[in-house]
């Protein structure tokens, strides 16, 4: 069956060992995907996602898509796990079970999309087919031109940075905007200050860096803060307080230092020793 998929439309250019490894990796990917869907513990899901991206990258290497594998390795295995965990700090440890009625619609969509994909498989070009549209159109032009135009061995970099410079610039701007959005919503160094809220019956409060966390001057904040109006709404930092906090930062720095000096020496020396 799978050899039919690889061979559809032309001679298979894939070697038998690679085919075995591909099939085994895909089978494991399916197993992990089902496990992720079935699990309720979010810790386990984060770990399984790390494993999923590990195997994805290994599979991309067997398919010779090395740059994609590199990105998957860098983002999926390391950073993504850390960011997922840090986002999980603000939510639950267990995912809520979804009723059978609610999952009927998505199931229908998934089944239809999967059936459409299986219907389209015979029209796909064979793996590594030199005459496929992807290999004969602009892609081939880039590959032949890059040898004399750019003269670097990695065609992917040449296409990414030179031929498609506009694309890459827009991607960079997209990443920049994502960072900007995070900065505006959450603040980088505790712009939101010391806040406390009740979300779904759980008390949540933020502890920010010592240079802007001024406990002495904002101790009355938690009492004056109104209770969260909506249970489902995440606690938002008030936009009003941001300029005030920025304005006061210069004035408050001595106060912050004083509070830091008052703290027990154990923590302070730990921070100092590791920083130097």
């Amino acid at each position, binding site marked *: 069956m799978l050899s039919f998929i690889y061979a559809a439309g032309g001679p298979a250019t894939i070697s038998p060992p690679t085919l075995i490894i591909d099939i085994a990796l895909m089978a494991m990917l399916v197993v992990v995907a089902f496990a992720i869907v079935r699990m*309720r*513990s979010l*810790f*386990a899901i984060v770990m399984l996602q790390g494993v999923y991206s590990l195997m994805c990258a290994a599979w991309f290497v067997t398919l010779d898509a090395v740059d994609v594998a590199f990105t998957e390795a860098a983002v999926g295995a390391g950073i993504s796990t850390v960011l997922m965990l840090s986002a999980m700090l603000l939510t639950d440890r267990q995912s809520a079970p979804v009723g059978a009625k609610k999952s009927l619609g998505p199931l229908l969509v998934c089944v239809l999309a999967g059936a459409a994909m299986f219907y389209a498989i015979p029209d796909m070009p064979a793996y590594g087919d030199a005459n496929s549209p992807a290999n004969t159109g602009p892609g081939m032009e880039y590959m032949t031109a890059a040898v004399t135009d750019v003269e670097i061995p990695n065609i992917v970099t040449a296409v990414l940075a030179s031929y498609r410079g506009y694309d890459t610039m827009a991607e960079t701007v997209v990443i920049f905007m994502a960072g900007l959005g995070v900065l505006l919503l959450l603040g980088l160094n505790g712009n939101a200050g010391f806040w406390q809220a009740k979300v779904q019956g759980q008390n949540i409060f933020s502890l920010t860096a010592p240079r802007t966390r001024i406990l002495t001057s904002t101790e009355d904040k938690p009492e004056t803060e109104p209770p969260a109006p909506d249970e489902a709404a995440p606690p938002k930092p008030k936009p009003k307080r941001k300029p005030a906090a920025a304005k006061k930062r210069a004035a408050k720095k001595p106060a912050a230092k004083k509070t830091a000096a008052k703290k027990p020496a154990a923590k302070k020396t730990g921070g100092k020793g590791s920083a130097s």
Partner: protein
Amino acid sequence: MAADNTHSAPANPVDIPWDAVLEWGLALASTGLIVSGAIFVLAGALGVLRMPDFFTRMHAAGMTDTLGAEFILLGLMLQAGFSQMTLKLLLVAFFLFLTSPTATHAIANAALKSGLKPQLGPYKAPELSEIEGKTPSEGAH
């Protein structure tokens, strides 16, 4: 090669094709290293699956992963020769040698400090009633 040697070096009664000997010797050496490394790695995986409690599993995985990985990488280095590839494989081996025991140590430390007790005494298979009573699918902690 062998035919040339018989004519050019008649003093040597037994003609030994040194190139092939070297090639096959290296191949067999690296095969031995890779196979033994793979057996170690596989034994570690089997130990993680079959051992009764967390600390024994950790022992199986930690020890055999380091040894097996170094064996396999050594076997690959023999084949790569003096090239950039060998340097990279050396880096992989070095990083694995540093990070794998450290990670295992951190796991053991976290598990012990959080109150996971090692199973002491001879291993007793759990009773059928105990297995049915528990739901092992979710995290115990």
